[in-house]
């Protein structure tokens, strides 16, 4: 069943990664009181970019809120309680940190933002622009507005000019799920129901993912769309989704040094080809992006965008692309038990997809700068945090027993805190085991946000002033 997407009612980042807008800056903010929050949202509202077709602007603005931000806007607790349990508990909750692998050096106590020790974040503003000058100009306007409305920027996350390669040097962002209702999906098979990425539409089970529904009386101006589930309630969630933001610091030198050391010839000399090959095994793609299942022996830039492949029939043992390689874990495609190689396996896989919208950060031009950390401001969108983002993070990326392995976490992004320090490269006659794999990626900040639909933004902007909390009726 395909729903018609209300594209003009959805924030644009759901439909596009703004590849034409090469410059971006993400502002985490907090407000002093409801009027500040409302003032800021009121200023943002006419500027927020929607997912309407034919986008051609030279800037874009998106806004998302934490539970604290929604409360700040005056959303009553009964409504806040309708959001997902993971969103309400937050990414840095103690048990969740263990679950997500945010322990040890990735521990939330050491985070630059979003950790339990830091100030509470109300929301996130994503600013995109075609040029650096334009971005600076818009960011200055935003800063001005924040000051004028008693809101504060807690952190401004700068990004590198958009490029195809992430900081380790690999072509990135090739495999994105195709969302039903968007034009690309109708041209290709294997699309994913819109409800996997936008609330208020049918998800992979043909059901409506839980979202906050309000009694009609809570929306006297009828700003919100009706619950498509057929209840008489107003749908605060429809056209919105959850946004995961994580600052993932990448140890680029550590990564390449490891690959160099591990592939040194017996005489101690370096082997550039072997180094590149090991790095590709860790990732599952060559630097160009060519997938190992299609280009097992050497990089082939002609296959750089290669995304039409499975694992089970071509490479069941992982001889080309190791069973534990990053892309084989982050998206196992057709290799999931108990029926690998079948449509059923692909079907189950599609229940765990993420729309990725991250941008890299670091020293511009890649020039080394003391203390200049580099990495990815990872952003993903998902309607069900538990079944999508958290599942991928724990069960696919961090579980040392994934795919029949014993002690291998994701070789690129996995946590090595307690276990998972092995990387196994299947080969004939004998596999090669790399023990004591260092941790290449550390979490430096993170939070869950709700990215409201346009109607929900309008609704949130006009909520009445704080009233004494009490049981609500109607």
């Amino acid at each position, binding site marked *: 069943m395909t729903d018609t997407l209300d594209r003009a009612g959805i924030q644009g980042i759901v439909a596009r990664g703004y590849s034409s807008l090469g410059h971006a800056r993400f502002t985490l903010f907090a407000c002093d009181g409801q009027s500040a929050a409302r003032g800021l949202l009121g200023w943002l509202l006419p500027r927020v970019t929607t997912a309407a077709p034919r986008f051609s602007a030279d800037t874009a603005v998106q806004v998302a809120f934490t539970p604290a931000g929604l409360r700040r806007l005056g959303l009553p607790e009964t409504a806040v309680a309708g959001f997902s349990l993971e969103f309400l*508990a937050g990414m840095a909750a103690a*048990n969740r940190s263990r679950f997500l692998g945010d322990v040890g050096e990735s521990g939330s106590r050491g985070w630059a933002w979003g950790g339990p020790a830091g100030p509470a974040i109300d929301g996130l503003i994503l600013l995109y622009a075609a040029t650096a000058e334009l971005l600076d100009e818009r960011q200055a306007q935003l800063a001005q507005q924040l000051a004028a409305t008693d809101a504060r920027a807690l952190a401004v996350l700068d990004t590198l000019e958009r490029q195809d390669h992430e900081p380790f040097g690999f072509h990135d962002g090739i495999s994105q799920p195709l969302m039903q209702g968007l034009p690309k999906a109708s041209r290709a098979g294997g699309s994913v129901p819109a409800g996997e990425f936008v609330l208020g539409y049918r998800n992979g089970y043909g059901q409506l993912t839980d979202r906050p529904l309000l009694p009609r009386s809570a929306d006297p101006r009828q700003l919100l769309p009706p619950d498509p589930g057929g209840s008489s309630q107003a749908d605060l969630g429809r056209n919105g989704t959850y946004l995961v933001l994580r600052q993932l610091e990448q140890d680029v030198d550590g990564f390449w040094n490891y690959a160099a050391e591990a592939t040194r010839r017996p005489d101690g000399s370096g082997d550039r080809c072997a180094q590149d090959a090991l790095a590709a095994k860790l990732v599952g793609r060559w630097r160009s992006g060519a997938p190992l299942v299609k280009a097992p022996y050497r990089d082939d830039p002609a296959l750089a965008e290669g995304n039409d492949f499975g694992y089970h029939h071509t490479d069941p043992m992982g001889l080309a692309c190791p069973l534990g390689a990053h892309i084989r874990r982050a998206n196992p495609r057709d290799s999931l038990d*108990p029926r690998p190689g079948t449509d059923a396996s692909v079907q189950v896989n599609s229940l765990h997809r993420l729309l990725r919208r991250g941008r890299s950060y670091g020293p511009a031009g890649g020039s080394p700068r003391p203390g200049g950390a580099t990495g990815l401001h990872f952003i993903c969108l998902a309607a069900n945090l538990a*079944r999508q983002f958290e599942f991928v993070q724990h069960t696919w990326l961090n579980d*040392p*027993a994934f795919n029949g392995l014993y002690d291998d976490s994701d070789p690129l992004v996995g946590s090595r805190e307690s276990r998972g320090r092995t990387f196994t490269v299947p080969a*004939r*006659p*004998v596999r090669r*085991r790399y023990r004591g794999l260092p941790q290449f990626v550390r979490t430096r900040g993170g939070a869950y946000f709700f990215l409201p639909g346009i109607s929900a933004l309008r609704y949130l902007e006009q909520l009445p002033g704080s009233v004494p909390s009490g049981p609500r009726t109607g």
Partner: protein
Amino acid sequence: MPYQVGVTIRAEVSPDQLPPLRKLLADTGRKGLTEPPFDFAHLRGVHFARLYLLDEVADLDGRPIPAGLVFMSEVDAPLRRHLAQLIDVAGDGIDQAFAHCAGYPGPGARRRTRIAWLRRHLVPASAYYVNTVGRGLDQIRQEAKLRDALEDRLDQGGWTGRAAAGVRQDLQDYVAGRGDLSWAWRPPPEPPLLFRIREAVHKAAMPLLLLLLMPVLLAILPLWLVALRMSELAPQPEIKRPAQPQLARLQAWEDYETQNPYAVIGFIKPGRLHVLTMRAVQLATSYGARHLFTHGSLAGVKSIHFARWVPLDGWRRMTFVSNYDGAVEAYNDDFINEIWWGLNAVFGSAVGYPPTRWLLWGGARLEQPFKYTLRNHQVPVPAWYTAYPALSAGNIANNARIRAGLPGEMTPVQAEQWLSLL
């Protein structure tokens, strides 16, 4: 070779004993059962064990069901030895825990008295699933050791350009030189003859019995179907999302090891229809677990080491307990995607389960209500023991394949395939 039994001991806890018992269990936590005073690591053949509390509740008629302390273990037979060792080896811990229970004879009492008390408090399971029937703890540990030895040998390198058969020969020679691995040349012992005869008889007898009863069952079937469907069409209470404190209590004890302990408990819907349905489904489940799903997969779910269903309080309540690999979200997804029909049959007669259609459909396929109801009925298991915290069921099965392929001749292709297990 032993077969594995599931032991359940349940005893009543008086209200004043609850706080100290709760504290004892939380303090025991994940490491506590391994070490003294429990010292489960020194019990013979214990795969998993747990101690947890069932809170006091009122049943559906408002009658109180007192709080209970539950001990469970998955252990290699014989049961007699296990019960004796619980007192002889783990006695200090068992005394400390069960001292909070009504009527426990206490540490001062004779050994025989205490064992007899434990035996009196055994609760039978209505169905019991074992990932691989007959694979005892010693075998699991030995085969893990064999794999480690072979992997270490392979790590020494120098294999490039060698034929698979030659590498395998080298590994065989290596194992031959290790006296501590001499057992690896023999296949693991089979379960005792008596056990195998008993299982074979049961496997054949049940279908025969079913055939004999068929006329009666066919006569009842339409009536049962009508009654079932009518009860399904009656209004059902809304399924609430779990409260944050309940989630926090559960999450505090999850995801420390490769496996997790699982326990849900709920009331069986009132009326003879539902108890009868539950009993019938349990018979089928038990048959399936004993005779059909005995080698590595419970109808497609491969991540469960052990599972059991235990009716409590005269079939007023049913509890489902398992030891499974990975996270609870993934476990629930397996339920929904692979064995939704089984879950529906088993739990469709339970209060608070998402509405089913003709017992098998609906239910678990309602993803979020299903996940909520499981969380709502889940019980935290703080004190839990696993004998092999780093081994998934898939790892254990792979280790067994490695051992099975060690002796004998192989074609080059077979040798290549065998080496790919490492």
